[in-house]
């Protein structure tokens, strides 16, 4: 049961507040006006844009994904009353403010080049050939200003023009592919697709590979763990619980590298 439902609404209605990202209001709780596609709605002041729109009656079939700020499905553009600046955010992460003028941009068209990562030359020139529009960048920085994740978009585009794929991959790491950069680009670049290619090339060809990971994958593929995994999947719940309780466990605060289990056959 929520706080809203248990709150003593009748005795002190003036002090009721909405709390958290809940769409059920205590009676008399404060609401604020927001504008969705130009139409005014009164919504609880503590909601995220996404919840506020649902409160107002919108139903998301698209433009809504993880609700956790990472899938990139709910980019939102908004203005505030009396402020010339455009603001950007994810609907699931941004709390409503009074007199926000909102528009959802769940998708923005941006061409993605076709390539085979296995056959691609891991060079900046290969990226230039696939995305020649890279050189239409005028460094206006609108991309960076639009990014709801705070990615330095202009800087990674510049890094690519300078041939530095590793730098571009690192700078663009937080990109969630929402497309707001592309929506604001004067040079009509599909920045997020270019960055994705840079990260793919970086991951496959540039980043040092972990030897222990390759070794472990080889062990898995050789069937080393098949037998024990087979046994585990056939165990009853009680057997699994017993095994779990009796498992060997590294003592808390054991100095690094001092503890070894008795059973080392799977290490």
């Amino acid at each position, binding site marked *: 049961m929520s706080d809203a439902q248990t709150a003593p609404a009748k005795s002190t209605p003036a002090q009721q507040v909405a709390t958290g990202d809940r769409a059920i209001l205590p009676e008399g709780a404060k609401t604020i006006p927001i504008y969705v596609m130009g139409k005014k709605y009164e919504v609880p002041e503590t909601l995220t844009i996404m919840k506020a729109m649902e409160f107002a009656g919108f139903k998301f079939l698209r433009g809504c994904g993880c609700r956790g700020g990472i899938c990139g499905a709910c980019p939102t553009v908004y203005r505030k009353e009396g402020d010339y600046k455009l603001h950007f955010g994810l609907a699931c992460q941004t709390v409503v403010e009074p007199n926000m003028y909102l528009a959802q941009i769940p998708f923005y068209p941006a061409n993605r080049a076709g390539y085979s990562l296995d056959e691609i030359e891991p060079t900046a*020139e290969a990226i230039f050939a696939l995305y020649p529009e890279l050189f239409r*960048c*005028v*460094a*206006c*920085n609108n991309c960076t200003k639009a990014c709801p994740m705070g990615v330095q978009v*202009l800087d990674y585009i*510049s890094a690519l023009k*300078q*041939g530095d794929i590793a730098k571009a991959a690192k700078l663009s790491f937080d990109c969630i592919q929402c497309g707001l950069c592309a929506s604001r680009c004067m040079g009509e670049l599909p920045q997020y697709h270019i960055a994705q290619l840079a990260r793919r090339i970086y991951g496959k060809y540039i980043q040092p590979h972990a030897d222990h990971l390759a070794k472990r994958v080889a062990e898995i593929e050789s069937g080393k763990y098949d037998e024990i995994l087979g046994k585990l999947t056939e165990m009853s719940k009680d057997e699994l619980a017993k095994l779990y309780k009796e498992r060997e466990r590294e003592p808390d605060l054991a100095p690094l590298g001092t503890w070894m289990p008795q059973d080392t056959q799977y290490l």
Partner: protein
Amino acid sequence: MKISYYPGCTLKTKAKNLEDAALASMAALEVDFEELPRWNCCGAVHSLADDDLIHHVAPVRDLIRAMERGSDKVVTLCSMCYNTLARANLLMRDDEVKRKTINDFMDEEKDYHGEVEVVHFLNFLRDEVGWDKLRSKIKVPLEGLKLAPYYGCTLLRPKNVSIEPPGHPKIFREFLEVLGARVIDFAASTLCCGSYQILANPEAAETVAATILEGGINSGAEALVLSCPLCEFNLSKKQGDLLQKNMLSQEVPTYYFTQLLAIALGLGGEVCRFDLNDKISAELLKSKSLPSCDQAILT
């Protein structure tokens, strides 16, 4: 005085031979250069349209980056970057209305009024290092090498950003003389290389490139010395086409001025990345049997 170094995109990719030799030389000259930690394309060409301000945003942003570092000067190696940055800088100094428009547009950055000075590396070597000090550091004088300095446009034009007072430029000659080379002046040294016309009107660019190259060798030069990757593209990378079309009588070696500086400072061929030059360029140097670097040159 704090000096920032602005490399330019091409120097990080196709013209590593222009940059690497310069960086090694700066270190050998104990020059405290710091590459700007953040920089974008210089804009690559200065927009002449009176109402086209957006193409000045890129160079101004770079100048703001230098200002943020507390730099008095930003030094460039590439003629084109020098020209674009210097002209944008003048615009921000002299044109109050455009300055305000650009500063207002870049409202996420500090306002810029031309605080930083844009300096080409040749001027830096002459004015900050000094020819006498440079001469004292020369370990491998380029004796017997007949070199024609090629300025092209962007070091000299327009006159308000020219690296020397307009007329008879001599800074390149002085530089090569300090390195110990024999300098060959030639009439075509300030002609345009054809620039981006190589894409839109290749015949025109090839004609002028052939004129420049033939002008150099007919004056007795063995090689041309350059400071711009676009000039290098038209005057060196396109030589194969010129030979094929009988527009050029022989291959002409070309060097970036920084490569010759590094050789003369005794830094050897490795820092010069001659693998990015035409083969004939390294071979010419090798044939001169310059002390202590002949083997390293072809690496």
